């Protein structure tokens, strides 16, 4: 579904992603883990098309199309959803107004009919109830005055409302207590489907106890330094990221890759 090849991304004159290659087939959940500064959020933003994140080389193909040639709203209409690490507050814009305008903009871009207000409200009520979101919260300006956990829950709510096909979760676990984490993870797990793929970006292994990935990739110094099964996340939890990106050295990746692929005992 998503095929990234030799991607290079520059932000404000600094190259952050340096030749990243990753294949994410439909129906799979892949985790991208890495230390702070490895380029995790940069990868997420580049895939979503954030201005200022300049792709200098490489490609990203989504459903056979050139993802990087699309504007951010076109990517959204095609089913790309980025759950933000820090969801934005929109003062004066009621949540429901924003969501209906956004959903209809996506539908219009896909050549579908607009969803009428009553049908939208019914849909929003159902999805909110499933995520234990008080409906009154949706009438308030989006995310304004919400706690970190409430904002993340609103992201998952939007995700379930828009039914995207490619989900990118950027540090969705940050700022969540264990109960909120469970609600968010349940929402994400409910979204698993054969025609849907997810990229779960996280620093900690904790989230992966709830959202079990098919593959785990270690992102260090702008590249995938290692890839493996779910057990790789546990190894990282025990051993840390140190061996993947020794400061000042760009060549540690290969050795790390070998050790990561080696079987780990219980």
């Amino acid at each position: 579904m998503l095929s990234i090849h030799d991607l290079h991304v520059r932000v404000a004159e600094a190259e952050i992603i340096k030749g990243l290659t990753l294949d994410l087939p439909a129906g799979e959940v892949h985790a991208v883990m890495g230390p702070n500064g490895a380029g995790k959020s940069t990868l997420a933003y580049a895939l979503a098309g954030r201005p200022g994140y300049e792709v200098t080389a490489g490609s990203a193909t989504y459903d056979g199309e050139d993802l990087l040639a699309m504007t951010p709203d076109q990517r959204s209409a095609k089913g790309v959803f980025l759950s933000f690490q820090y969801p934005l507050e929109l003062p004066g814009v009621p949540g429901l107004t924003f969501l209906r305008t956004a959903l209809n903009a996506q539908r219009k871009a896909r050549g579908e009919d607009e969803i009428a207000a009553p049908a939208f409200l019914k849909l929003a009520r159902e999805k909110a109830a499933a995520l234990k979101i008080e409906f009154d919260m949706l009438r308030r300006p989006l995310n304004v005055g919400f706690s970190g956990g409430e904002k993340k829950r609103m992201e998952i709510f939007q995700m379930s409302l828009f039914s995207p096909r490619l989900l990118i979760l950027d540090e969705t676990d940050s700022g969540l207590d264990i109960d909120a984490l469970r609600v968010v993870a349940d929402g994400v797990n409910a979204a698993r489907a054969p025609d849907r793929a997810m990229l779960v970006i996280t620093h900690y292994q904790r989230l992966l106890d709830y959202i079990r990935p098919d593959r785990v990739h270690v992102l260090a110094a702008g590249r995938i330094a290692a890839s493996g099964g779910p057990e790789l996340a546990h190894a990282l939890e025990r051993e840390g990221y140190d061996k993947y990106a020794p400061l000042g050295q760009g060549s540690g990746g290969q050795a790390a890759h070998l050790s990561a692929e080696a079987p780990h005992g219980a």
Partner: protein
Amino acid sequence: MSLASALKTGDIAELPSRRDEDWRWTDLRGLIRTLPAASPPGDAAALERGLFDDQATETIVFLNGRRLSGVGPVVVAAGVPRTIALRFVNQAHATAHHSALSIAVEAGAALTLLESHEAAGAAYVADVELNIRLGEGARLERIVLVDEADDAIAVATAEVELGSHADFAQTALTRGAKRQRCETRLRHGAGAAARLDGVYLLDGERRGDLTSEVIHNHLGGATQQLTKGCVRGQARGVFQGRIIVARGADGTDARMGHHALILSERAEVDAKPELEIYADDVSCSHGNTVGALDEEALFYMAQRGLPDAEARALLTEAFVGEVVDRIEHEGARDVARAWVAERLRAAQ
């Protein structure tokens, strides 16, 4: 010196110019080289429906400066509150006219005034002078919607005098013109309350000017003022707000806020908030900000599928919506909200 006196006397030297401190950003003398001829009466049969027709029970129309029905001042007596639509229609082409009306809201009476300044012509010069008096405990809410032609020059001035414990609320919304100014001069009564809000939405080469002067001469008056503006293209917005608290006007509470969004590199906003306080026991504050739309918020909205123009319109609408939401008359609030939304989307 005023546009009104220049039109009356035909003397161009009567026009306010940049040498007048209060007119330095809206220099009419430098703009008008010769005064245009007087406007013809206009064709009343060609009048379109007014924006506030559905909200009001009475309508007063000025067409090219001539009042179509009734004479003399509008007097509102205590009893049943009244809602009047007041229309200033400019059906003129490169001509000039002046309209004047006095409104008295007697003690204990209540009036909602839904005022529209409408373009049905081009390149005209229009002046409107209102004289508003509120008796003791009287109430007036005035909504002013200024929708002039882009090559018009238009000035609307209101002199407002409040009796003791009177309550005056005003929201002026303008899209500017070649030059357009809404000026309000208000004198407080003891314990009176005033709300003086404004919205300017300017694009192209339009200029809009919201100027006010509020004088607290008595005990315990309250003024709240919130103006928000949005400029793009090569438009230029002006906000001048002066609040004077005279010696002895203790217990005055005055708050002024002006906030503007500049949405293009060549647009400009000039703001001059002034508080002159000569009394000791007062509570006054003012805030003034000028900024741009939040790029991060725009990206967030785009990520959720909103095309850039739609995202900008939604954020801008939310920004000025704070002022529109303060309109008390529900029908007028809806008209104002729809007008703002239409303006913001048309200008993209």
